[in-house]
């Protein structure tokens, strides 16, 4: 019962983000929209996955991870970000997608074998760094809804974030590699 209330409470958070007043706060800058809001939605998805009562099916993990990655890729395209600023329905779709991506990633990533998990995490963090560099170094405007300064600020925030995730994965990989030797 307690879990159902928690589920409902966390599921309400993405809905709150769609309220015009709250959406206006996040949509004001690219940094808030594409980074702040995305991270918040990912966290909500992650939180939901921990209290979700359904049984995890390992066989669904690869498809779920691919779906989550594609959702991310789609909403990283500048044209898609523009769309969220033009049509409220596209914005709703964006919120649902990133929330679902967060849920799928945290729900199914742990079911993958260790090597696949590390490889995916390295790929994902590299994707963040590459996107950051693209947004930061591009001299022309990519998202028409924001300014060039906004775009560069967003790019320069993505780069360290991606690098931190990358380093964390490397550290966890070192531990994972060393552990069997220590146990011998």
């Amino acid at each position, binding site marked *: 019962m307690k879990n159902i209330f928690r589920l409902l409470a966390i599921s309400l958070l993405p809905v709150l983000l769609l309220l015009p007043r709250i959406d206006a706060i996040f949509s004001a800058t690219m940094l808030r929209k594409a980074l702040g809001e995305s991270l918040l939605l990912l966290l909500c998805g992650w939180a939901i996955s921990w209290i979700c009562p359904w049984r995890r099916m390992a066989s669904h993990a690869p*498809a779920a991870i691919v*779906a989550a990655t594609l959702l991310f890729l789609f909403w990283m395209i*500048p044209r898609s970000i523009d769309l969220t600023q033009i049509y409220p329905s596209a914005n709703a779709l964006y919120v649902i997608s990133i929330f679902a991506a967060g849920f799928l990633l945290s729900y199914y990533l742990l079911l993958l074998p260790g090597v696949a998990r590390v490889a995916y995490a390295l790929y994902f963090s590299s994707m963040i760094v590459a996107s950051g560099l693209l947004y930061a170094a591009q001299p*022309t405007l990519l*998202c*028409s*809804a924001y300014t060039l300064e906004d775009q560069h600020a967003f790019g320069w925030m993505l780069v360290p974030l991606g690098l931190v995730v990358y380093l964390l994965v490397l550290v966890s990989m070192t531990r994972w590699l060393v552990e069997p030797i220590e146990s011998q």
Partner: protein
Amino acid sequence: MPGSRQTTTTMPKRFVALLVCLLVLGGGGGLVYAWTLGFSAFTSYSYALKKAGPLPRAAPDISFIDQFGNERPLASLRGRYVLLHVFYGSCLTICPIVIEELRELYSDLSNAQQNKLVILSISVDSLRDTTERLHNLWREEGAFAGWIMAQPADRSIDQVAREFGIWVFAKSDGTINHSADLFLIDPGGRIVRVISPQSNDDRIRRDLEKYL
């Protein structure tokens, strides 16, 4: 043999899982492919441009009302190169920069080159950019005979933009997002070059010198 029984029961499951994975990958990849016109247009600007068709292509047969209030078809400028772009008078970001670049560029051209070129600045803001306002702007920018500041006459700016391949979106705060590309139309009425002014004006100059 419990092991072999387990293998036979998990095989279809694995096959289905692989199939689902491939379907998700194919469907998602296909969606992104279509959305970006074959992984070639990732921004709203490039999408609008690609969607209008490859270069060279015939310039749309539009009509405009110039800064003197005269309605003219684009075809009336045949025989000269036309550098067409969109702007709006209340813009505080890219438009003043492009207009300034064009003013410098045009004033640096020789008389012979100026005779070969017409700059056609079309406003995307028909409400605020009245003929009078466009005339004032034209005078402020040097009142060059070969520079026309106009608004669309026979169709909406959205239609004009779509036909040329220009992204235009009016925001609720009164600002208008739009492509800043310059479309070079040859004397025969074909769009032969699209120049991004955000690169630098040396490139625009170099590109133009090839034609003039």
